C-alpha cells in the first residue's frame, strides 16, 4: 500500500519536472541547486502547485518557498487545513 507522503512526493515531483523541464529532480534540493528556478519559474511553480493540490497559497507563503522541502511543508499545511 502506498502511503500519502509517497503520493505527495510523486505528484510534486511530476510538477517540478514539468516546470523545470528536468528529467530528474532531487526532492531535497533548494532553489539554489536548481539553475532553472528563476522568478518566472517560481511563478509557474506556484500556479502549478495550486492547480494540482487545489489550494491557494497566501502571498506571505510564496516568499518563503525557497526549497522543495519547504514546498512540501506548505502543501501539507494547506491540505491539513482543508
Amino acid at each position, binding site marked *: 500500500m502506498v502511503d500519502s507522503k509517497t503520493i505527495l512526493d510523486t505528484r510534486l515531483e511530476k510538477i517540478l519536472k514539468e516546470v523545470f523541464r528536468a528529467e530528474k529532480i532531487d526532492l531535497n534540493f533548494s532553489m*539554489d*541547486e536548481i*539553475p532553472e528556478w528563476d*522568478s*518566472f519559474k517560481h511563478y509557474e511553480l506556484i500556479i502549478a502547485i495550486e492547480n494540482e493540490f487545489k489550494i491557494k497559497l497566501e*502571498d*506571505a507563503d510564496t516568499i*518563503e518557498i525557497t526549497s522543495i522541502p519547504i514546498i512540501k511543508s506548505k502543501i501539507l499545511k494547506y491540505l491539513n487545513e482543508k
Partner: protein
Amino acid sequence: MKNNHLNQEHQKINYQIKLDYNNVCDLLFKKAAENPNKKFLICPGEKHEEFTYSEFEIIVSQTSQFLIKSGLKKNDKISLIFHNSSEFLILYFAGLCCGLTIVPINPVMSSREIKYIIEDSDSKTVFYSDTLESKISQIIDSLSNTNFKKTKSIKDLISLYDIGKKIECDQVSLNDMAVIIYTSGTTGNPKGVILSHLNLLSDAMGISKWFQFTKDSRCLCILPLFHNNGQITTLLAPLYAGASTVIIKGKISLYAFWFLVNEYQATWTSVMASILSILLSLPNERKDNSLTGILCGGQILTRSVQEQFEKRFNVPIFEGYGLTETTSFSCINNYPAENRKIGSIGKPLQINEMSILNENGQEVEESIEGEICIRGYNVAGGYLGDTKINHAFRNGWFHSGDYGTKDKDGNFYFHGRQDSLIIKGGENIYPAELENVLYNHPDVDECAVIGIPDELLGEDICAFVKIKDKSQLTKNDLEKFCKDKITAYKQPKKIIVINDLVDLNEIPKGPTKKILYRKLKEYYQNSL
C-alpha cells in the same frame, strides 16, 4: 570635497561636490549614530530578519573583527557568493569597514565561471551560502591558495571569536578599492570593474538627492546585490538619506511584488524593464498607497510597456541609464513625474557629466547620433588588470560603447550599442562567452551568437552553428553540451544548425574574417 581625490582624468568634472563621508562604513556608522533605533533593513522570507541601524552597526563591527582575526588585511579581496540575504549585507559592510575589497559573484554562474572570477580577482577568502555547497565543492580543490568559508549564518561565524562591539574605519580612504564587479567581456571572460568608496558614495548620493529620499523613504530591493544596480539604488542610496530597505531574493519577489510593496509600505523600487512586462502579465493588482515611483534601467523600456504599466498601476516610471563602469545610474528622467520627458533616459546626475561624442572624440550637435560618454565622481578608475580593455577610459571620458543623442534641453536618448553585446533581461552577455563554450565541442566547425528580439526580456540568445562534415551532432546534443558549462541565463534559446539551411552556407564574415553579427541579425529577422 576637493577634486584631489579624483586621480583619473575621466573622473574630473568642472565643479566640486560635497560628500560628508570618508568611506561607506563612515556613512553607515554616522547614520547609526543619528538614528540608532530606526529600522534599517528588513529581510522577509523563511528566515525573517530585521535590523535597526544600531543592531546592524553592532553585527557589522563584530563581523569586521572576525575578518581581521581570520588573518585578512587591508586591500585583501574577498568573494561573496550569495543571493540577496542578510549574510551578504553583513559581510559586505564588514569587509568594507576593514578596508577589504568585496568581489560579489552571481551564485547562478557555473563553477567554471565562479573559479575564473576568484582567480582573476585574487580573492584570499570566499564566503558562500551553504545552499551552494554542491557547486562550490567542485572548485575548492583546484584553488588551494584560497580559503573557503561556507556560511549558513553570520552568528555562527562570529560566535567562534571573543570580540568587542565597535570597530573604527578611519584607515579606509575614499580612493580605496571598495568592490570589483564583474561584467561581461568581449573576449568571453568577464572583466572586473574596480569601484572605489568614492564611486559608491557619490552615485548613492546622486540618486538619493535626485529622488529626494528622506528618512521616511523605504526602498524595495528585488534586484541582485551582486550587481551594481541593487547595491547602489536600493541599498546605498536610501542609506545616504538614513532611510530603510527591504531586501528580498529576486527569484521569489515577482509573484509577491505588490504584496511586498504593501506589506512593507515601500516608497521606491528599482527594476529592469522585463520585470514591468512580467508584472503586467500577472493578474495581481496593486494594493498599497505608498509607492512613489519606480526607477527602471538596464534595458530598453518600450513606450507601450511604460504606458500600460502606469495606466494600470498608477505609479510613475523613471527611466535611467548607467553601466557598471559608472557605478550605477549616470542619468535619470526628471523628478517629479510631471517633469519627465517620456522616451528619454533623462539628464545627468549631479555627480557626473555626459556628452555625445563622434569618432574623433568631439562633441556632436543636438540630435546628432554619437557615443554616450561619461566623466565624473562615479566613473570607475578602470578594469582590473588588462590594459587593452582599459581603452574605454580615454581622453578624459569613459566611452560607453552605447549610442544616442541629446536634445536642446539636455535630455539624453539611448539608441543602441555599437558592438554585439546582448542584453537579456538586464544581464549583459557578449557572444564570445557562449561561442567559446560551443567551440570546445570537437564537431563544431564554426559558430556565432547573436541577440534576437524577445517580448519579455528585450533580447534572448540565438547560436548559429556549422557542424563539421560527416558529424551527426544535433541541436539537442549541443543544448546538453552547453548545459553545465555556462550559466543558465546564458544558454541559447535557439540553436540554428547552418548545415540545415538552404540559403546560408557559412557564418557571414568581412574581409578580415571578422564575424558580421549585424548581417546575421538581418538574416535572422528576414529569413527565420
